[in-house]
């Protein structure tokens, strides 16, 4: 479904993503994990069209989506939940859900889509006509995910969906991601909560300093010394080996 090959992204002359290649199959959850500044969000920005890569290719369903702009990427069925939620605070919850509706979608159908969004996230139903600024952090995250889903995307890009949330709400978010896969939505999940993300995902990629340094399924990764070094306590004491990690 999604193939990224030898992606390079630079901010000015500073490389943020170096030679990244990854792929996502339909109905998979693929996790992209790594520490702060690893380049994960830049990969998402390049995917959703907000950043133009210096080189490399991004193929979605067999066609290049490099440089086509975020509106076109969205219209192809790729929806993004950005890091930090970025809900529209001055709009009501209902209006937030209506923004991604195609212009040509009839009002009645748009209303049905909003209703469907609320059924998955019942907490939002209580605030439908309230300003989104009144929502708590967890509710905002649910609104951001609901907003990305109302357009019925084929591929959902989730950027740090649990950042800053309490443990109970984190459980809710991971449960929702699991349900999305069960409903046939393909998910590319960027997370700092690596252990949890890798456990949930079908396959995972680990980024560090702009490069992919490890990849594999949960059993491959959790058992490796490098992954343990990064996420189970050894990261500060031992540099990550890169030999043979990424393809």
């Amino acid at each position, binding site marked *: 479904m999604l193939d990224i090959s030898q992606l390079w992204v630079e901010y000015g002359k500073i490389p943020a993503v170096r030679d990244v290649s990854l792929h996502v199959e339909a109905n998979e959850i693929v996790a992209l994990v790594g520490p702060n500044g690893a380049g994960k969000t830049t990969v998402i920005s390049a995917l959703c069209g907000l950043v133009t890569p210096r080189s490399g290719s991004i193929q979605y369903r067999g066609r290049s989506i490099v440089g086509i*702009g975020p509106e076109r990427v969205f219209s192809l069925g790729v929806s993004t939940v950005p890091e930090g939620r970025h809900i529209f605070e*001055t709009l009501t919850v209902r209006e937030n859900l209506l*923004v991604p509706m195609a212009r040509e979608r009839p009002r009645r159908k748009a209303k049905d889509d909003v209703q469907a969004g609320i059924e998955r996230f019942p907490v939002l139903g209580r605030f439908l006509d309230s300003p989104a600024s009144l929502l708590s952090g967890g509710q905002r995250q649910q609104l951001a995910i609901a907003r990305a889903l109302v357009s019925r995307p084929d591929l959902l890009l989730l950027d740090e969906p649990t950042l800053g949330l309490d443990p109970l709400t984190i459980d809710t978010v991971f449960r929702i991601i699991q349900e999305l896969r069960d409903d046939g939505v393909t998910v590319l999940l960027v997370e700092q909560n690596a252990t949890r993300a890798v456990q949930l995902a079908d396959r995972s990629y680990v980024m560090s300093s702009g490069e992919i340094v490890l990849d594999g399924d949960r059993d491959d990764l959790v058992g490796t010394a490098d992954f343990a070094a990064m996420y189970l306590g050894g990261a500060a004491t031992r540099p990550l080996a890169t030999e043979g990690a990424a393809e």
Partner: protein
Amino acid sequence: MIVVQTLIAALSLGSLYAVLALGLALVASIMRLVNFAHGELIMGAAYAMAFSFAFGPAAMIAAALVVGVVLALASDQIGFRALRSADSTTLFISSFAISFLLQNTASALFGSTSRTVPALPALSQPITIGEISFPMLDIVIIATAAVLLGGLTLLLKKTRTGLRMRAAAEDFRVARTLGVRANRVIALGFGLSGLFAAFAAVIVVAQSGVVSPTMGSDLVLIAFIACVLGGLGSLPGAVVGGFVLGVLTVVLQAYLPVELKYYRDAFAFGAVIILLVWRPQGLLPSATAGTRV
């Protein structure tokens, strides 16, 4: 009686300033760009009125609207579209370039001196109710501004296009990732800005009966001050800023001692500075006056 007349005059000037400021704020809210060529949109629309005078008031207003909107859309296409990813300073300089280009083009085509446009006679009539007398033009200005503000509010609150404009004004990047088409929303913002510039031109020409290539310079400055006072990038702020500045100006004109009236604008802008020291972000700031397109 004087108080009522002053109030009507204050509301009239406040209405004009609100229309001026909204024209500037419509683009600023989406692009974080203060388009200093907005004054020249007003000037262009005013010249359109001057040249269509022989065809009657309806034709004058129609000509102003067409020229205002076309100039606004053209300035976006020519001056800003290629600079979408440029920083704010570049856009700011581009807006000055368009401003000078339009001013000098008008000077070359129509001469640099002022041209008289006969005032619309029906609007010059005074209205007298008991002991109160005020120009009909004031009521027309207040009504025009009310219709424009009401129409804009309906567009923004009740239509899906308006919803997308509000989303884009709050967070353009995220709005784009949700399918809001950048160029379409920006063009709509410029088009509406041109519409407000055209109505401002109609009001200014009806008031003064004069057009000149440089007539937009003072007007855009007033619009800018009103926008900053209200909170740059905030549409409700632009309206509030416009009314506060208009009311302040008229009240000072009415109640300052005769020997100080000459310094009215200095007092008005001094009060604006004090208000901004009190609320640096403006009276009704935009919720997210952060990132630009």
